[in-house]
């Protein structure tokens, strides 16, 4: 078993050099733990200040607020803002890329879609919106089901879709 020494009459596998190595490693470990916590607080390991992002730009007809970093099976949300006039009352067609829909569990969409149509590479949700002079907001609540890069493509009607990707931690 262990390498025993006799120190002042006591048989023991004591090795101060090993302890010094271990203490050094422990300090490195503490530093790493602090860095991980700092990264988590900053939002690099999930939602947080550095994680929040928008795609589509401020003046664009469609803007999507999302988190760059998510976690598997954790609640997440896409907030889609339609510029005034884009949803001119009545019906809006929300188009979500197939890559996205197949890799997440969509919990709910507000406003609730009246119907869904599966296309070749996207899903089309038909939503009803009231006429409003302000931006119309559509929320998609979902949970990622796989870790890794999650490609997201969001389109409204015939407009060019907004595309970006999220990183999902296991």
């Amino acid at each position, binding site marked *: *078993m262990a390498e025993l020494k006799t*120190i*002042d009459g006591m048989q023991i596998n*004591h090795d101060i050099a*090993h*302890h010094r190595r271990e203490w050094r490693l422990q300090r490195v470990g*503490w530093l790493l*733990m602090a860095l991980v916590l700092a990264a988590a607080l900053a939002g690099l390991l999930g939602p947080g200040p550095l994680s929040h992002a928008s795609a589509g730009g401020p003046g664009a007809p469609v803007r999507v607020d999302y988190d760059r970093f998510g976690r598997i099976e954790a609640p997440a949300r896409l907030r889609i803002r339609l510029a005034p006039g884009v949803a001119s009352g009545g019906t809006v067609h929300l188009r979500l890329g197939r890559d996205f829909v197949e890799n997440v569990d969509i919990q709910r969409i507000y406003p609730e879609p009246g119907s869904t149509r599966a296309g070749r590479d996207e899903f089309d949700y038909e939503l009803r919106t009231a006429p409003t002079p302000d931006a119309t907001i559509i929320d998609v609540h979902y949970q990622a089901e796989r870790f890794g890069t999650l490609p997201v493509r969001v389109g409204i009607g015939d407009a060019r879709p907004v595309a970006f990707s999220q990183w999902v931690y296991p």
Partner: protein
Amino acid sequence: MESVIRALIVYAVLLVIFRIAGKRTLAQASAFELVLLLIISETIQEALVDGDHSLTNAFLLVTTLVGTTILLSVVKHRWPPVVRWLDGLPLIVIQDGRTVKESMDRERVDEAEILSSARASEGLQRLDEIRHAVVEENGDITVVPKKK
């Protein structure tokens, strides 16, 4: 397959975190440390089970965790140098009546804790009655009294 990998990752991460925390961090079993251990187990449980409450999953997880422990014990028995990294070594904090300041500071042990162990195990009343005091691998402090 996923449950086994999940259990192995949890085992490895916990092993590393507890080794980084140091021997004495959760060794005292004070009321707060007990609560901390309960919270840790509760937190890990969710990630380990991952919504699969089947008997198969439970057996797989337990078998993986116990199996890994058996495997590590065999490895430690065959290759003693591994022991020092997995379990650590005992650390002398009082040697032949003299306190070893460096070891006490680094391992965050003070005289009061040594005296507490000395009272509990040997009925000793003063530091100068202690010949050796050792922080064992599991974080307990053991004491050898001076011969009368």
